């Protein structure tokens, strides 16, 4: 066992290095910069065989990644916020062409007003782009999921790009002990990518051809099917990763959910704080739990239903506003998943942390107490609460 002190960004770079990526094409942006900066150092020092493509924008970065991925290469990039927004067009092309690219996304608020701090507005804006989305809680998870992401992306039943999302600054710049695997263990877990189709002068194929009313719909239907395969593949990959690392992952992590009457659903770093608060309340006999989806796209609807069906009140935390929508994105997914149940928990949405506004244990305690009230009375007075805003 080797424990290294690493920030979330460094953990992602280290995982990409051990995953032996063939090509990295990237453009720096705070708070992601350290990922590609660190990786460029590996290249300069000859620690990796990777081709590093310096580009003039994120649009070009992902374009280069798509081209490289089509040759059968293992491809990695990273971005954040405005950079992700600039990639938006290419994100649909990466998923539509079934490129198993892995991208680290340091989640950060979108302008305007200009802000560099962490919230989920960037990736939530691209949630329908056909990318698998994983949200991590700390540098250890960032490391573990980056390695697992390549296996999931490259599986023959999936062949889709994956984003590994880590909260800007809270995870990207916080140093923690990260238990890393040996290079050999990672190489054995991640064999060389075996592409189904690839650009090859000896066997010419056409990628990205015109496809109108006659076939487009069918290809989108195939992508839906690939998304449906993700959960099975992810479970298999996570089981195998547990054998190698001793750390078990899945579609989500549940704490105290088996007997919870009130629960919090949240993704990313906030889950750790929420778990700590829930633990404290449970020691006082309060039946509260925390459900943290690691997998946000595809949304693990059936599993979330199974975990929440007996709960009386659920607070769903969104670190991004879906302006004009009934709820934030995560809450919308939870609500739409639960609608198939006869008996549903009462749900309310908590919008928090926009632009990196800090969230304290006391904030979460307030929400959990509110949820406990609702569990008792059955009355939701406020369907959407803005936690920690001045108004």
């Amino acid at each position: 066992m080797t424990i290294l002190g690493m920030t979330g960004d460094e953990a992602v770079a280290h995982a990409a290095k051990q995953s032996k990526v063939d090509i990295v094409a990237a453009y720096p942006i705070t708070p992601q910069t350290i990922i590609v900066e660190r990786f460029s150092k590996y290249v300069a020092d000859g620690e990796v065989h990777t081709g590093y493509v310096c580009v003039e924008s994120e649009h070009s970065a992902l374009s280069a990644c798509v081209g490289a991925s089509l040759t059968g290469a293992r491809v990695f990039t990273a971005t954040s916020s405005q950079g992700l927004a600039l990639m938006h067009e290419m994100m649909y092309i990466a998923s539509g062409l079934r490129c198993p690219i892995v991208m680290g996304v340091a989640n950060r608020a979108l302008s305007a007003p200009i802000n560099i701090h962490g919230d989920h507005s960037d990736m939530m804006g691209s949630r329908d782009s056909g990318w698998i989305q994983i949200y991590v809680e700390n540098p250890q998870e960032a490391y573990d999921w980056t390695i697992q992401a390549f296996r999931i992306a490259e599986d023959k039943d999936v062949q889709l790009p994956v984003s590994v999302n880590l909260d800007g600054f809270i995870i990207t710049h916080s140093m923690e002990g990260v238990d890393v695997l040996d290079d050999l263990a990672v190489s054995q877990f991640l064999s060389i990518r075996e592409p189904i189709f690839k650009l090859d002068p000896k066997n010419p194929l056409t990628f990205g051809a015109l496809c109108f009313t006659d076939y487009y719909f069918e290809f989108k239907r195939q992508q839906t099917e690939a998304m449906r395969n993700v959960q099975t593949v992810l479970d298999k990959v996570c089981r195998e990763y547990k054998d190698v690392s001793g750390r078990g992952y899945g579609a989500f992590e549940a704490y105290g959910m088996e007997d919870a009457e009130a629960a919090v659903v949240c993704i990313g770093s906030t889950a750790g704080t929420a778990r700590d608060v829930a633990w404290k309340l449970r020691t006082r006999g309060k039946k509260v739990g925390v459900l943290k989806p690691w997998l946000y796209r595809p949304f693990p609807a059936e599993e979330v239903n199974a975990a929440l069906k007996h709960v009386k009140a659920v607070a769903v935390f969104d670190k991004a506003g879906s302006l004009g929508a009934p709820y934030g994105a995560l809450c919308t997914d939870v609500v739409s998943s639960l609608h198939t149940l006869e008996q549903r928990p009462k749900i309310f949405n908590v919008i928090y942390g926009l632009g990196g506004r800090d969230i304290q244990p006391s904030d979460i305690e307030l929400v959990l107490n509110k949820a406990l009230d609702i569990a008792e009375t059955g009355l939701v007075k406020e369907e959407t609460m803005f936690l920690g805003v001045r108004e």
Partner: protein
Amino acid sequence: MGAVVVEPGSSLKYKTGDWRAFKPLVDREKCVNCLLCWIYCPDSAIVRQEKWVDVNYDYCKGCGICAHECPKDAIKMVEEQK
């Protein structure tokens, strides 16, 4: 998967003539075989013959450039009957 076309040169099989709303008709009496239409056709759908031109309707999209360029008014665009 991924809309990959697995054989080269398969665009020949995609008959873009289906897109046509108007069809060029060549009047062989008026045609002087100057080949301006052949030069201008963006789809290479004008077929050279010894004394006049024909149109390859498998690929002609009916843009009408040939009719517009013809100095002898030998090409008329008529509505497709489908």
